[in-house]
């Protein structure tokens, strides 16, 4: 039983979710509060990774970040960073694919915050930052958390984009889903069964946690 694959999956999903909390959370707040030209187009582009097949997302990332691309060659020559076939590449793939899963619920949560409360706070003299920290965030955190749980579970199962970007290097980039795929390909039923059960168990626990955490406050008593 190769525990390294589970470790890698947890690490990749964890970092990806954290990155999406920051990126998705801030963009969600922006989309909920501001109106600007091209807003719909931006929204469509940000939601794209969710509707595109993961292998397509992976291919885009491969072309954008590969050694011969503008970004890839710059990263390599300035910082000696290579993203393809690395755990960092896997994290990027997972982050991009799960980004819409954080953006949408977070935005919905921010939009559900009663504007009157926000306006009352401003009238009483709170700064924009204070409004965010003391009014919007406390009221929206459940929705954001639901999105984060979904994104984490999805990142645990990420396969197509990760395989394209990070390859399958046992011990370095071979995450749970890739390990399962290769075990099935090689006819290793035993490993495949064990890995599948572990993944399913983890995801069920996560989803249960998500639904428990997002129950309305009154029913928590």
């Amino acid at each position: 039983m190769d525990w390294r694959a589970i470790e890698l999956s947890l690490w990749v999903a964890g970092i990806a979710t954290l990155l999406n909390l920051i990126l998705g959370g801030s963009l969600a707040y922006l989309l909920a509060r501001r109106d600007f030209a091209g807003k719909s187009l931006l929204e469509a582009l940000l939601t794209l990774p969710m509707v595109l097949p993961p292998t397509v997302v992976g291919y885009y990332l491969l072309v954008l970040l590969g050694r011969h691309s503008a970004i890839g060659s710059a990263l390599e020559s300035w910082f000696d960073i290579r993203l393809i076939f690395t755990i960092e590449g896997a994290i990027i793939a997972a982050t991009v694919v799960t980004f819409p899963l954080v953006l949408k619920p977070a935005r919905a949560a921010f939009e559900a915050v009663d504007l009157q409360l926000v306006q009352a706070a401003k009238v009483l003299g709170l700064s924009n930052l204070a409004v965010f920290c003391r009014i919007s965030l406390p009221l929206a955190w459940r929705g954001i958390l639901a999105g984060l749980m979904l994104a984490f579970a999805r990142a645990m199962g990420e396969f197509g984009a990760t395989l394209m970007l990070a390859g399958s290097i046992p011990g370095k980039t071979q995450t749970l889903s890739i390990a399962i795929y290769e075990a099935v390909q090689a006819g290793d039923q035993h490993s495949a069964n064990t890995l599948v059960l572990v993944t399913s168990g983890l995801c069920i626990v996560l989803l249960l946690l998500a639904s428990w955490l997002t129950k309305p406050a009154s029913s928590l008593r």
Partner: protein
Amino acid sequence: MRVTCAFGLLLWTWLASPVLLAAPCELTISAAASLSGAFKAIAAQYEQQQPCQLTLNFAASGVLVQQLRHGAPVDLLATADQQSMDLAEAGALIDPTSRQDFIANRLVLIVPASPAATSPQTGSTATNADLQPLTAPVFQRIAIGNPATVPAGRYAKASLQQAGLWPALGAKLVQAANVRQVLDYVVRGEAEAGFVYASDAKDQPVRTLGLVPLQSPIRYPLAISSTSKHAAQARAFSQYLRSQAAQQILLQYGFSTME
């Protein structure tokens, strides 16, 4: 009366349609990934000569055997090494009397074509490649097929083990799902070197450093599946694969004649 006649006609047509519309010959062929180019060309030629519809399925040989094991409706199996065919034979997936080798191939070590080159540089497949330099730091990633499922990966692993380099290179190896993916990694420059067949490296933007020394030559076997419903037609196609016309196409694609 007319309604009855019309209905009768329709019914007869529907019942007879499988006979009326059926292609006289339909074959599903599972072939190793390295055979994709050559087999597509051979199939096109065969379909022109015979009223036969060929469906081609390409993947790593290990994967093909797994598909067959799980009930894939395949008529003919062509793998890139004897080991995969042995597995198929052991699992009673093929008719052992139909098993025969039909073409040979060679394993080569390739590197990305230098950026300055605009045309693919053919390397020296006449000389043996020296595997020692692969331990140098300039080779950060070396692509091989996953030895569990890809024959080319097994051959590469065997030759590296023979040269005593397998433990040293372990950390640098990137495993690919099939030999064509190994080629893709090297073409893209994401891997500094890779092990592919001479047939894969041909006419590609890569440089061949040389032949990889192996214990025994690489010979591709084919066999008719034990569950095939078109055994006679499969036999006819397997005979065609050994004919001059098909062998010529295989040689054009970089395969070699069996000694």
